[in-house]
C-alpha cells in the first residue's frame, strides 16, 4: 500500500519544524534574565514589607492618638489642659537616646494624663507657647529627633528638597537635605537622599563635591538601582 503523499508531506513539514534549533546562547541568556528578575522581585518584596511595617506603625500612632483624644480630661480651657497633652509614640524600633536629649525631654507616662486630676489654670500661668514645654512631646518640635523619623517624615523632607531642586533652588534643596541628615537623622531613604544631594551639589556649582559624593555612593552601593544615576555625576 503506497503511503498517502499528503501525509508524507505533512510529516516532512513537521520534521522541518522539529529540526529547527533554538538560537545559540538564548537559553543561557534566558537563565540570566530570569535570575535578574528574581533579584528584582526580592528587592520589591522587601520594599513592600518595609512599607507595610511603617504603615502598621503609622496606624498604631493614629490609634494611640485617637485613644488619647477620647480619654483626655474634660475640664479644659480653650482646649488647653493644665496637664500637658501627651502624644504616645509607637515606634517599631526605639532608638538609643543620648543624654543631652533625655535631659530635654522627660519620660512620658501616658497613664498620667488619664488618671491625674485635671486642674484648670489661667492661661497666663501656662508656659509661654514660644518656649518648648519640657514634658510635652510631639506638639513642640525638639531640635533633633529623639526617636527615628517615620517614613512619611523622611519622605516629606525629601519632597521638599526635590521640589526645591525642581524649582532651581539648589541651596534650598541642600538646606532641606541638611535637615534630613541632622534633624531627622534619616535612614530609610538614605540612598535617595544622597542622590538628591549629589544633584543639588552639582547644580549649586560644586561639581567636585558632587563627583566625590557620587563616587563614594557608587563604591558603597554597587548593587543599588540608583548607582547608574549616581555614576553619571562622577567626573573622570
Amino acid at each position, binding site marked *: 500500500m503506497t503511503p498517502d503523499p499528503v501525509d508524507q508531506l505533512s510529516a516532512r513539514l513537521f520534521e522541518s519544524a522539529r529540526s529547527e*534549533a*533554538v538560537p545559540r546562547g538564548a537559553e543561557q*541568556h534566558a537563565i540570566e534574565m530570569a535570575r535578574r528578575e528574581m533579584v528584582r522581585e526580592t528587592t520589591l518584596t522587601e520594599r513592600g514589607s518595609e512599607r507595610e511595617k511603617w504603615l502598621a506603625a503609622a496606624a498604631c500612632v493614629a490609634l494611640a492618638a485617637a485613644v488619647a483624644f477620647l480619654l483626655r480630661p474634660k475640664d479644659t480651657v480653650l482646649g488647653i489642659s493644665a496637664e500637658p497633652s501627651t502624644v504616645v509614640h509607637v515606634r517599631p524600633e526605639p532608638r538609643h537616646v543620648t543624654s543631652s536629649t533625655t535631659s530635654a525631654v522627660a519620660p512620658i507616662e501616658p497613664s498620667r494624663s488619664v488618671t491625674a486630676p485635671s486642674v484648670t489654670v489661667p492661661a497666663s500661668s501656662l508656659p509661654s507657647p514660644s518656649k518648648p514645654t519640657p514634658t510635652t512631646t510631639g506638639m513642640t518640635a525638639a531640635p533633633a529627633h529623639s526617636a527615628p523619623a517615620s517614613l512619611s517624615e523622611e519622605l516629606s523632607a525629601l519632597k521638599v528638597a526635590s521640589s526645591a531642586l525642581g524649582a532651581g533652588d539648589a541651596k534650598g534643596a541642600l538646606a532641606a537635605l541638611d535637615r534630613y541628615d541632622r534633624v531627622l537623622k534619616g535612614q530609610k531613604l538614605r540612598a535617595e537622599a544622597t542622590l538628591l544631594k549629589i544633584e543639588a551639589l552639582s547644580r549649586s556649582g560644586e561639581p567636585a563635591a558632587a563627583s566625590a559624593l557620587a563616587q563614594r555612593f557608587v563604591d558603597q552601593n554597587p548593587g543599588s538601582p540608583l548607582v547608574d544615576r549616581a555614576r553619571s555625576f562622577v567626573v573622570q
Partner: protein
Amino acid sequence: MAASRNEVILSASKAPLGAASRAASHGLTIDALVGQHYGFIWRVLRGLGLSRADAEDATQQVFMIAARKLDAIDPDRARSFVYGAALRVAKNALRGQRRRREVVADDELLDEAEPEARGPEKMAELVQARRLLAQVLAHLDEKHRRVIVLAEVEQLEVPEIALLEGVPVGTAASRLRVAREKFRALLLTLRDHNPFADEP
C-alpha cells in the same frame, strides 16, 4: 534597611553562574526550569507564528514570569505553567508582529545550527518547508493550531495535550482530529508549493 536591600542584590549577583539561582521550598530552580522547558516553549511559540527573534524574546519573557512565581510553581505542573504563560505572552507578541506587518525573510527561517553541510538544496527545502508549514498553520484557528503543534511538533500524547490545554481528554482528542482534517485539507490546496522535489 537600605543595607539589607543592597545585600540581597549583591548576594544574588555574586552567585556563581552555574549554581542553582534559588532553591525554592520544593527544590525547583530557575536553571532547571529553563533547562527542561526552553526548547519546548520556543518551538510552541514558533508554531504559533512568531518569528525566530520574537520567539526568543517571548520565551525569555515566559521564564521571567516563571522566575517571579517560582515559589508557587508545582514542579509536577511546571510545564503547564510555562505553557500557559507562553500562550499569554504569544498573544501580545503576535499582536505586535501584525502591527509591524513583518515579512519573514528566508534567512529568518534558518537557524545557525544548520550548516552549509546540508547543501544549498536541502537548505532551500527547509526554508520552503517551514514557510509552507507556517502558512498552513496560520490558516487554522488558534485552538486547532495549538493542539496540532503539540501533537505533531512536540509529539505529545492526547492526555498530555489535554492537561496542557486544561480540557478533558475527549475534547483534546476531538480538537486534534478536526485540526488534522483541516491541516490536510489546507495542504491539499497548497500542494503546488510543495518544497520537496521528490514528492509526487
